[in-house]
């Protein structure tokens, strides 16, 4: 009876093809996909930018922020050295992320020297929290939250930018004098 089933139902095995993963692809991951138009011959070379992140790290985002702040603006070698001798749990995670990003840069993003990278941005964000019961004595209990965080990093090719010089008194004085000199009368002849 069902001999012709093959011809009658050619699409007998319809698998609703889901996307690569049911998870949404985050904004930071999408930043690697932008393609700039080719540069004109006269323009200076645009430095390569590599975006990398790690999601749902079992650590607090406030504590991770201190490490992210430490690394901001350093060259990648200096950052790796600092993280290696830091005792925090997040330091190990960030080091792994940086090494991954460095490898990605060399393989996929056409970076010539793996040491010629510096950290332009390093941010943390809070991940999903989970509330759990924490039992105290005498039948009392409290609710604790198990916190997780994300870590985002942007590597840019080239030496790190020089650190901002603090504003000297002379500069401030010059600006003040300039301000005074640029005063005019409005709505007059």
């Amino acid at each position, binding site marked *: 009876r069902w001999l012709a089933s093959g011809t009658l139902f050619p699409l007998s095995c319809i698998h609703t093809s889901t996307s690569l993963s049911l998870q949404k692809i985050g904004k930071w991951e999408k930043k690697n996909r932008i393609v700039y138009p080719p540069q004109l011959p006269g323009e200076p070379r645009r430095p390569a930018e590599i975006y990398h992140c790690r999601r749902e790290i079992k650590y607090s985002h406030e504590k991770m922020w201190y490490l992210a*702040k*430490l690394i901001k603006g350093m060259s990648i070698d200096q950052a790796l050295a*600092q993280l290696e*001798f830091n005792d925090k749990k997040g330091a190990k995670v960030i080091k792994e992320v940086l090494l991954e990003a460095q490898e990605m840069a060399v393989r996929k993003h056409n970076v010539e020297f793996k040491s010629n990278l510096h950290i332009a941005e390093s941010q943390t964000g809070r991940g999903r929290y989970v509330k759990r019961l924490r039992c105290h004595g005498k039948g*009392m209990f409290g609710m604790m939250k198990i916190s997780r965080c994300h870590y985002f990093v942007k590597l840019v090719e080239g030496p790190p930018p020089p650190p901002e010089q603090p504003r000297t008194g002379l500069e401030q004085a010059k600006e003040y004098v300039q301000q005074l000199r640029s005063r005019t009368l409005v709505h007059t002849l």
Partner: protein
Amino acid sequence: VLVLVRSPVPRLRALLQRCWGRLERGLWPGVFGGQSPPWGPALAVQGPALVPEGINYASGSSTKALSLLESIVWMAAPKHRRTIEVNHCRRRHPSKLTEIKRNIDVCPECGNLKQKHVLCGYCYAKVKEETRLIRMEIHKKEGGPFNTPVVETVVLYEGEKPTEKDEGKRIIERARKRPSWFVQN
């Protein structure tokens, strides 16, 4: 972040109320060293005026007691919420940021990073592994605990013979080439 569900204030209040009740009823006379409680009437005066006073006194004492109890249970608590700007000023103060370490060097032996006052981690791990293998050989030779001989030990690698200095010493053989960092004698 922990949040206690039951506050201890009503418990303490209940306890103090019970103690106060006992004092009033005279079930706890030992407090005042045998004397009569100070709130009892010193003079027994006849008259109807005292009766309503007594009732008022009872109600008055209870309200006074409650207010006294609540004033005893005063706890310091924050009055206003600290804004995130204020919190940031405190948490991100330069004294609280992690300092950058300036005592990191390169190990001349293996080329890994090391702190100036600490041994190189890679070289230490290498030596630790070799020591573990030597100790395994020693264990095989001894066979059990408390069998250590009272002589020195010498470790010899492939192709090495014991010299005149190693006359009375115990020899441990390792089946590999001598590592460059393990200098002989």
